[in-house]
């Protein structure tokens, strides 16, 4: 689960990590008032989950409270498009207004779980401000890493290795040691999957401050973090994706026109791949779960049909322990309930497949029954070609 910058900064503050003074505004008037209280220069930052806000025009420096008002007026309500939002962009509901700081140097500090090592890894770089992936691609020697073995947990050495490695001295070093330790505490205590301060800045008066903050949390651990769960912002997600998650369906909206429903994540990805190979374009990823019960099939059909780009539907179910005849019966019920109008190709395979196919053929619905995986994709592609865009 992702959260906003201002929410992440609240967590940082609670753990004693220095952040710029500031507050959130939902109106230009409020933004002006915050800027007045801060005094001097301020920075107005759009609060959306996606990165790359600055380049998209979502971050503005204001010299006076009136400028902060105008900046907020421009940003609040705008449809911010960044490399992470996709072409449709994300509507901005609120801005964070912060004091402008005199920045001497920008650093990077981040923590993730390294999948190959199976341990949390803390990373720092003197090339702050750039994406860590960009640093890794252009100057990997500028990234310092240390893995924290769960057998020992976090030790002072972990922070020293990074802080001295960055060449920080005296008071700055002391600040960095404590800051790294606190950030690691957040990562572990809140079951984060990413905690990132980029940039972590050294200011003119020799202080380390988290100028930006990004945190994502392990969805599977939210059950033990009600405080984090509360920070969920459904407005940042696609409406259909939110609805799907309420039905425990894994649905991701894409931009094609072939709606698909599959049981199992791997098979669902493979189905998208095969649609593309056959010359079609998937409108979504949708995993109805290994069992594909009648109720889930109905929910899934309703959600994928709500995407108006969908012109044809492919259902690919591998019936294992839940037999194909049962799946087919559920599918017929679901298609009748949602009053399916679009062409539908069904590929059903596995236990009792003949009985299942017979149920589909005799249902009175216009199911195209595919004989195998490839046949299904080709049938879909053939239908897609007849649809005028």
């Amino acid at each position, binding site marked *: 689960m992702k959260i906003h910058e201002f929410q992440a900064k609240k967590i940082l503050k609670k753990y004693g990590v220095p952040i710029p003074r500031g507050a959130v505004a939902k109106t230009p008037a409020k933004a002006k008032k915050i800027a007045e209280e801060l005094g001097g220069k301020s920075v107005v930052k759009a609060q959306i989950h996606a990165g790359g806000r600055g380049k998209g025009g979502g971050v503005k420096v204001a010299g006076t409270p009136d400028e902060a008002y105008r900046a907020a007026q421009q940003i609040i309500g705008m449809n911010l498009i960044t490399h992470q939002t996709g072409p449709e962009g994300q509507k901005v509901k609120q801005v964070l207004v912060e004091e402008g700081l005199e920045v001497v140097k920008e650093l990077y500090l981040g923590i993730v*779980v390294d*999948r190959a090592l*199976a341990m949390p890894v803390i990373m720092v770089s003197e090339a702050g401000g750039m994406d860590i992936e960009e640093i890794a691609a252009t100057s990997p020697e500028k990234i310092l890493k240390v893995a924290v073995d769960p057998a020992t947990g976090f030790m002072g050495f972990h922070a020293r290795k990074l802080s001295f490695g960055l060449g920080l001295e005296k008071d700055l070093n002391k600040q960095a040691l404590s800051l790294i330790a606190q950030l690691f505490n957040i990562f572990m205590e809140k079951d984060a999957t990413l905690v990132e301060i980029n940039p972590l800045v050294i200011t003119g008066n020799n202080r380390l401050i988290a100028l930006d903050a990004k945190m994502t949390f392990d969805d599977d651990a939210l059950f033990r973090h009600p405080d984090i769960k509360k920070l969920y912002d459904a407005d940042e997600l696609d409406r259909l994706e939110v609805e799907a998650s309420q039905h425990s369906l894994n649905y991701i909206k894409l931009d094609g026109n072939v709606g698909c429903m599959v049981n199992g*994540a*791997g098979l669902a*990805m493979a189905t998208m791949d095969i649609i593309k190979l056959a010359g079609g374009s998937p409108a979504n990823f949708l*995993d109805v779960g*290994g069992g594909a019960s009648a109720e889930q099939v109905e929910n899934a059909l309703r959600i994928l049909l709500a995407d108006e780009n969908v012109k044809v539907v492919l259902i690919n179910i591998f019936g294992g*322990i839940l037999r194909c005849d049962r799946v087919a019966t559920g599918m017929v019920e679901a298609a009748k309930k949602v009053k399916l109008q679009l062409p539908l190709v069904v590929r059903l395979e596995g236990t009792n497949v003949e009985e299942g196919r017979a149920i589909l053929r005799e249902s009175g619905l216009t199911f195209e029954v595919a004989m*195998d995986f490839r046949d299904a994709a080709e049938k879909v592609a053939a239908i897609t070609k007849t649809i005028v865009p």
Partner: protein
Amino acid sequence: MSILIDENTRVVVQGITGSEGSFHTKQMVAYGSKVVAGVTPGKGGQNVDGIPVFNRVEDAVVHEGANASCIFVPAPFAADAIVEAVDAGVDLVVCITEGVPVLEMVKVRSYLTGKKTRLIGPNCPGLISPGKCKIGIMPGTIHKEGKVGVISRSGTLTYEVVWQLTQRDIGQSSCIGIGGDPLVGTSFIDLLALFSDDPATDLIIIIGEIGGTAEEEAGAFVNEQVKKPVLGFIAGQTAPPGRRMGHAGAIISGGKGTAQEKIAAWEQAGITVVNNPALLGEAAASLLK
């Protein structure tokens, strides 16, 4: 032959009294697996279809000679159950449960280091040695005894491949779903090594997907150490970056973990890669000629 499990495997089911646990226990028994015990803390002394239930895994080991565990307990308690099974000294732990927190798995992986127990999963369908034993939730009937080893990060996609093989009368030595999570107990490499040494396996099929670098590591291992033919498919060629495709581990992050990179690594390693998953059965048949 087969790897990891066979007719001598004695299974204890952790979470046997739950709905998933009791349902799949019946399925495993029907397939012919020797399920000798179940464990549900507090329900020791009961039985499920005649299978004795104990409070602790170690009791199942001592009294019933269990040497493998299959875990169906809910996600918040799954790491606890894994550690208990490892402590009890079983050779193999298969964790079916989906949704184990990543930081729990960090601890589990650390704890497993140096232990004799092998963990398969979590978030996996389990494994099967056709005709001998199945531990997990895969449909037994689609399998057939034979000489192809299958390793996969996915459940139903594995069934798809197995089905294509069995339809062509090509049997399997063992099929293992290693799990769709970012951190799992057993890697592609561990299993490639076992299949490589198994005289009854002639062809290895490996099914990868986007996210992480497990496929690239597997490719390097195949290149250096595997003399048998290896056939592969990577799911997620059309997956958008930054999105978790159902499995917690299936995500392209920071431009890394794409299907294209993985396919290139495998082709370089001499693995026969098919781009179309519908062609896996056909490709296996031609490699076995």
